């Protein structure tokens, strides 16, 4: 499963740890939510970046005390139709100020890349290699955004008001009709 970060396919520096696998002495790992919450200080005390795989039906506020020390949170789309992790992502980024890697896992398909990116994901465990290769082109398909999220993209509402304030900026403004 190719991993996409900053628009390109990269090697994964993290190892996903099975629940019955012992913790390795070194190296970045991703542990399950249950394992992490049982002994958070033990995991955070390791001298390596730590990631947590968080299920989509568990409240992300449980993670709030640890956010600044987590290097990665993996949220999951068990089916692409199950959109709960979009909400979790926005809450982590926009409400709780999480700045580490936010990784989309599960059924991560081409036509959801942009939604995921807008919700705050910056790493993508893509199912199909052909989709991963098309990542950069896919997220550039749209240039107009209505709903404001924490991704920093200028929404239409704002663009119009800015254009109205600066009549020269015709590109974003009304064009005659």
């Amino acid at each position, binding site marked *: 499963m190719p991993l996409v970060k900053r628009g390109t396919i990269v090697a994964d520096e993290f190892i996903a740890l099975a629940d019955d696998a012992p913790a390795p002495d070194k190296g970045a790992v991703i542990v399950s939510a249950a394992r992490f919450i049982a002994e958070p200080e033990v995991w955070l005390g390791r001298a390596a970046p730590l990631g947590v795989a968080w299920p989509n039906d568990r409240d992300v506020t449980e993670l709030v005390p640890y956010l600044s020390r987590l290097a990665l949170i993996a949220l999951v789309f068990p089916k692409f139709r199950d959109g709960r992790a979009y909400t979790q992502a926005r809450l982590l980024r926009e409400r709780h100020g999480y700045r580490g890697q936010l990784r989309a896992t599960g059924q991560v398909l081409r*036509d959801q890349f942009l939604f995921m990116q807008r919700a705050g994901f910056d790493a993508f465990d893509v199912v199909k290699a052909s989709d991963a290769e098309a990542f950069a082109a896919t997220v550039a398909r749209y240039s107009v955004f209505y*709903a404001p999220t924490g991704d920093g993209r200028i929404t239409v509402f704002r663009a119009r008001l800015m254009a109205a304030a600066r009549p020269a900026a015709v590109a974003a403004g009304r064009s005659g009709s």
Partner: protein
Amino acid sequence: MYAHDELDRVLVNERVTEFRDQVRRRLSGELTEDEFKSLRLMNGIYLQLHAYMLRIAIPYGTLSSAQMRKLAYVARRFDRGYGHFTTRQNIQFHWHKLADLPDSLAALAEVGLHGIQTSGNCVRNITTDQLAGVAPDEIEDPRIWAELFRQYTTLHPEFSFLPRKFKIAVIATPQDRAAIKIHDIGVALHRNAAGETGFEVMVGGGLGRSPFIAKVINPFVPRRDILSYIEAVLRVYNQYGRRDNLFKARIKILVHELGVAKFTEEVEAEFRQIRGGALALDDEVVADIAARFSYPAYEKLADAPPELARAANDERFSAWRRNSVARHKVPGYAVVTLSLKPTGGTPGDATAAQMETIAGLADRYSFGEIRVAHEQNLVLPHVAQRDLPVLWRALDAAGLATPNVGLISDIISCPGLDYCSLSNARSIPIAQELTRRFADPQLATLIGRLHINISGCINACGHHHIGHIGILGVDKNGEEFYQITLGGRADEGAVLGHLLGPAVPFDQVADVIEDIVETYLDLRQAPDELFVQTVERLGVTPFKERVYATR
């Protein structure tokens, strides 16, 4: 009319480009039908019994004559020469070919039309009062709000994969012509004692297998906060709505299972977190949207011009005028409903030729504007009263002046077994037979206002629960049977209908409806007691006795 700007157009065109690529990938075999399904479903494309069906959004039911002409073009060029207007102010074309879909959508995009928000588990096309902007009693034009909601929910990055589809309707009058209480969220604009406007928010209405009337969760959300409030509702639903069972996934089930009090608490808690954030609607944002709606340059005219008096002795004209013409807020003008329910026809269908005629008449007599009503009729919203006689003659010639608006043959019906793969039974032929039985305008007028709604299965696309008479197709050992309910209504006093008794077979439905109507005519206290009022007063029992006495 709302003037789409460059940004709106860019988005729609980007959508077409994306979809063209998806169809190419499907035709080349790069995508399986299953993978393609989810993509076409985000563009309003369904695979039906015989062909692909394309559903096009008509935001808040407002169409320009240019848009109507383009719909006619698409009907002719890519379909079978007609289209079907739905109960959600959309239009459907039932006979598209896969390879034609991108070109069809590209043609529609030229006039700002698209299939975004007409399928999939996203927030669907926002609906409102078909008389928005012309109703004498409205607080302000609800389309300003519908447009704000439309923009906010378009391709929403958090709420495009909700547990189920999500429908929002908005009104700004005391009278509810948009059936907001059967929507996932219904909002009604009010003005408070201090003169500020805000919204009463209702949640959890819906029909289908478990019908519910929406419940009020906040009586007054200030207008500045309404998007934040809607986001709070959507967020609670996205997190907690059921995903284990398709039939329990709508928000009405969440509201029901949590209880209104607990659900409201969750929404209010979320609202407190986001209120005043990026979604707060500054006055300038609202003003900017409002400024994009243009209104006709009405002439200074008086009510009841001489042309009307002269035409009054034509009984056919007068009958049509009585039920198809409504008051306009500007003196000398009127709102005209065009019945898409001719005797023996399919409710909501319009041919390409009719669409072109309507576009022409809209240009001549209604400032180029047309509305789609959720009753599956069309509306010319700005007609000078002096033009009514000449407009009527043109409509009559085009088969668009059936004088039955609001009467028994103005039937709402889903497509049923003739098109829909989910159906149990035919619904269009039932509607057609009923329009024949009640074709006599005098009889229909004698009966008065009576809404019949027909659905071909429990999904209730024909809104049978809220029909004064509701007809629901069910399958009984492979045969088409129909359950009948009485006394439902969709307006501000919305209630669900009551079951009359055992289901009846296809060939008895029209007889049963005739019996019900006769019973009503016998029992009503006065000619102005409406059918629903008689049912409300007496219950279903007298109707049941009469109908089943001989069966």
